């Protein structure tokens, strides 16, 4: 009898797996900000970073507002063997994640990218540096990976500059914001961003979290991380309501909005409620010409991680059908702790073509890659 320790538990899975996957939410980190991001940051801002760090508009300045589900919010098996934070080592990400799950397209969504920094000029400089870093360390080395244009979204003019800097650059497939903005997202101060995205046909992804300064729930600052996590659904509903009701999709009908990491099963009930109240109060906002749910179906996509886990899988079937199978994008959130495994999510039954769309083709069509 021989006894082997398991060196690569993923190998067996990868060999038996044919399905090609698009992962619409991967989080890369620099091995070291000084080594990898500083080369793209002016000296003035390097000094600023060294002196003050990245100060966000939130009441907890030393790290996240809540303890994460695991240290560094990461899967405990995602630490690169050569050291560094999870998500900081391309070679390890390739074997541990991309190869293992046959990921053909991976969308990089950098966090700690300068978004939400209180100093708007520093936010813009840091976002630009993080965008350059994505090219240098990730997308230029691994063609399966595509970057996100991080924008200092609290300042629309600076954000538009950054979007326009990257227009036509094949390293990027979307512009990137965080959900918890300082004003509801349909507010006019953000409109130039939507105009720039629509004009240049760049989808706009909006990821859970963010540092707008408002409490993370409609009822104030809760006590626990679980409330922070379920709060993303509230924040996403706020943003969709605001964007639809302010008439953003009426002004820029081609704008593509992707809700990332905030769940999706709430979308049907939000649509029903918005439609009902719209029917009753339509005269207040005549610029919203159609029922709000129609804009949701036309302009909004959702990444599916963290997946919904109802006791009965069939309950999700209706949800998928209301949203549209073509509007749901698979994502893992690698290397974070609430990672979804493509083979283990309780996906409703569907034919092969629909599954393929869900796991790959929807993303390819949306991003045009």
């Amino acid at each position: 009898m021989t006894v082997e320790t398991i060196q690569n538990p993923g190998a067996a899975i990868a060999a038996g797996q044919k399905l090609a996957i698009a992962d619409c939410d991967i989080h890369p980190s620099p091995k070291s900000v000084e080594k990898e991001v500083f080369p793209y940051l002016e000296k003035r801002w390097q000094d600023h970073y060294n002196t003050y760090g990245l100060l966000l508009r939130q009441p907890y300045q030393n790290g996240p507002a809540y303890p994460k589900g695991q240290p560094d919010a990461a899967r405990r098996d995602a630490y690169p063997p050569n050291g560094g934070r999870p998500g900081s080592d391309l070679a390890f990400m390739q074997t541990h994640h991309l190869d293992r799950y046959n990921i053909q397209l991976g969308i990089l969504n950098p966090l700690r990218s300068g978004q939400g920094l209180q100093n708007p000029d520093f936010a813009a400089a840091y976002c630009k540096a993080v965008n350059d870093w994505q090219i240098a360390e990730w997308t230029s080395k691994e063609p399966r990976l595509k970057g996100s244009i991080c924008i200092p979204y609290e300042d629309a003019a600076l954000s538009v500059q950054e979007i326009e800097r990257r227009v036509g650059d094949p390293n990027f497939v979307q512009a990137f914001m965080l959900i918890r903005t300082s004003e509801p997202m349909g507010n006019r101060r953000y409109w130039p961003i939507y105009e720039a995205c629509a004009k240049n046909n760049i989808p706009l992804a909006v990821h859970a979290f963010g540092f707008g300064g408002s409490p993370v729930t409609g009822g104030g600052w809760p006590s626990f991380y679980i409330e922070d996590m379920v709060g993303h659904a509230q924040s996403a509903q706020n943003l969709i309501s605001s964007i639809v009701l302010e008439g953003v999709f009426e002004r820029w009908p081609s704008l593509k909005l992707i809700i990332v990491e905030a769940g999706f099963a709430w979308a049907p009930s939000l649509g029903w409620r918005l439609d009902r109240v719209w029917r009753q109060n339509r005269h207040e906002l005549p610029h919203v010409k159609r029922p709000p749910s129609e804009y949701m179906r036309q302009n909004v996509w959702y990444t599916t991680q963290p997946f919904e886990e109802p006791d009965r899988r069939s309950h999700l079937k209706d949800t998928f059908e209301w949203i549209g199978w073509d509007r749901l994008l698979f994502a893992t959130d690698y290397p974070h702790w609430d990672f979804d495994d493509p083979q283990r999510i309780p996906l409703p039954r569907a034919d092969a073509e629909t599954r393929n769309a869900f796991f790959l083709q929807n993303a390819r069509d949306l991003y045009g890659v």
Partner: protein
Amino acid sequence: MAKHVVGAAKDVPPGERLRVDVAGTPVVIYNLGGEYFGLLDRCPHMGGLLSEGIQIGLVEAPKPGCYSYDRAGEIVRCPWHGWEFDIRTGKSRFDPKRWKTRPVEVETAEVKDAQTIDVAQDGLNIVVTL
């Protein structure tokens, strides 16, 4: 069912664990204060490797405002989504009837004719029945 010698008992002292592949099945063996317990090394949720998870104690609240902490090291927390399993039974803490990982029978025995190199020729070995 067959018995498999997977290692020398002295190499897995109390508080330690051993991850082994037993005839193609991933198994993690824990030593809790001198007693050995085995679990299928695959979380029933999405398949995270329990052997990569930390061992914690059992925090419970018999009623709100009153907390207990005991059985230090006897609960394994999945390295992915943090589900907790009782190492002695493989059952999850939040729904032990429905969600569990398979317990694997482990004993220690002297095995004289063991073929494997990393097994003690004198002293106790860890033997898995699978």
